[in-house]
């Protein structure tokens, strides 16, 4: 193998890996807030799909990237609030509600896509601005992948940084942790557990919707029923894997994204390997990483436990 080939391989791996990491990071970031606040959101897959479909439809109608992304965020937000209503206010089991939202998301977006576009599979032609940072982009291998990317990659980096600050340095961040770790103490200290959890799931839903819209509007520029193929569930695992620290969540997502783009990269190297075999790796990798990195007793103490004022169940 020549050096040029190897360079191309590594650059592709990093470049496509980062793009693949964007939706995972966004969704996992939202899930980080939700899980820290005590909500396990298995509906994230349905929220991503809804973000992807409604973002796609809005972008197709307007030709605008911003409108598409906003529609995706809105769709995710609505489902997030629905999840909140059923689990926080009505205190129904989160796993049941999450699965219901995922099934509704799959069915609704598949239905609307087929009904609206039939077998046409329309493609978007939305302009996605790229930012290339002078000089830095010339660094071999790392340069093109890291410093000449579309704008949303940088937005994602920024959101990770902001989330890190919010979680550790602000009152809201503290309240989120308290609501998930010890809601009784949080309540006693004057924190509204319900309000905090609603804010966390609204954020989770909005970011999941944005993640889906990124996939369909900015990255692939088409929609396909069920196109998220489990990325929402992976985001849940990534949030746990990163122990709810945004920077670690990003690192996990990039690692996963690189594993995902391995089959494309190997084609460049001319290595003949069945794609299905390579496609298994990310999922196996997640489980191995969870075993190695995530120890016992690391979940927020009140995760998936509804909170009712004045009720103490031990």
């Amino acid at each position, binding site marked *: 193998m020549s050096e040029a080939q190897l360079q191309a391989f590594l650059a592709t791996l990093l470049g496509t890996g980062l793009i693949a990491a964007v939706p995972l990071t966004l969704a996992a970031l939202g899930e980080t807030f939700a899980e820290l606040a005590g909500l396990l959101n298995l509906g994230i897959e349905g929220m991503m799909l809804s973000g992807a479909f409604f973002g796609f439809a809005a972008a197709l109608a307007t030709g605008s990237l911003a409108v598409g992304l906003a529609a995706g965020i809105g769709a995710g937000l609505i489902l997030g609030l629905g999840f909140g209503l059923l689990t926080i206010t009505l205190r129904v089991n989160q796993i*049941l509600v999450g699965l219901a939202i*995922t099934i509704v998301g799959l069915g609704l977006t598949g239905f609307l896509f087929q009904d609206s576009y039939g077998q046409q599979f329309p493609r978007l032609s939305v302009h996605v601005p790229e930012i290339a940072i002078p000089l830095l982009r010339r660094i071999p291998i790392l340069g093109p992948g890291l410093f000449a990317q579309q704008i949303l990659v940088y937005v994602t980096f920024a959101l990770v940084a902001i989330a890190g600050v919010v979680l550790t340095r602000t009152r809201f961040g503290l309240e989120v942790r308290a609501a998930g770790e010890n809601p009784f103490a949080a309540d006693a200290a004057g924190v509204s557990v319900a309000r905090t959890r609603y804010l966390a799931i609204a954020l989770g839903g909005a970011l999941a919707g944005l993640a889906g819209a990124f996939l369909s509007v900015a990255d692939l520029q088409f929609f396909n029923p069920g196109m998220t193929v489990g990325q929402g569930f992976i985001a849940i695992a990534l949030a746990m894997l990163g122990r709810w620290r945004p920077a670690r969540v990003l690192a996990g997502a990039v690692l996963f994204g690189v594993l995902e783009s391995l089959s494309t990269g190997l084609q460049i190297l001319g290595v003949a390997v069945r794609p299905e075999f390579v496609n298994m790796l990310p999922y196996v990798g997640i489980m191995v990483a969870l075993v190695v990195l995530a120890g016992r007793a690391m*979940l927020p103490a009140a995760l998936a436990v509804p909170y009712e004022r004045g009720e103490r169940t031990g």
Partner: protein
Amino acid sequence: MSGRVGAALAPLAGSLLAVAAAFIACGLFLEARGKHALAAYRFLADRGLTSFGVTEALIEMAPLLLVSAGLLIALKAGVWNIGIDGQFLVGALAVGVAAPALPGLPAAVVIAVSFAAGFAGGLLWAVVPALLRVRFGLNEIITTIMMNYVAINLTSWLVKGPVKDPSVVPPQTKQIPYGDMLPNIPGTQVHIGLLVGLAAVLLVAALYRFTTLGFRFWVLGQNRRAALHAGMPVARLTVIALLLSGGFAGLAGANDVLGVKGLFQGEWNPAYGFTGFALVFLARLSSLWVLPFAYLFAFLGFGGELMARAANIPVYFVQLLEGLMLAFLAVAIAVERAVVAPRRQRSAATVPAAVEPVALHPEEQP
């Protein structure tokens, strides 16, 4: 309604109301999309009541019953097996490989061995999440989902390569001889998989009603901590529940390969997992109520496809309907808890434990 009867029937009423609400909501949605909801529903009902419709629904009921049996075991024990799809595929592939490899044996032997292979395949696929749960405290929700995607890719890889029938172009296993497929129940067009499914659900009902193991599962599902304090082998029980659950999902795979398809095909994934979840929750984790709900879902699965073609309604409609049933069930559970429970101090009969909040902590000691 008075006293015990009323309280026992309240959950069923909630489930039926959830089903009705989902039909109404979907009907309004169809009308909003410019379709004729009543015509579509009438078509569904008309076709469903023909003998052809009933036959098809009964055939499609078999895998749903088997999947439900698996989910009942796990969920009643408080174990969240969301890996049904993966366990189903591995079980199905095991049968696709095993059944054609037994030439010259009596059909009854081939069928028995095949079902055993399907059970073993599904069970095997649950081993990793089970061990991760009890050895490393990793919650089974995430790991069983991850195993689904591993299974989809693994079976697809195997059927395109190592276990492919080399004499044909499409990726599939060898055709199972017609004589080795599941025979029909005498006098019907329904293969005996339905009886296997019914037997499986009855077996689970008997397990919970009459056996010590079932009782221990039940305690585990009601209160994990209590089970631990009572000195029950919580880790071992968790493993057994998850493995049995996977085994039944594998049996569903065996049923579909032996009874309907005759081989394992690449890219084939009926994805019964979500349907199974909606079904057993609507049945409120009751083995008895699983039967009518399995029929309803089988009928919808089959009738939905017919309706899709006849009334130009996307086949995703059925999934939307199932998801909404589950969402409305969530509302029904909340209403029930507010209205019924305070009156009679919440009993296990009205609120199945696994539908109640579960803490996700593996608090048992290694």
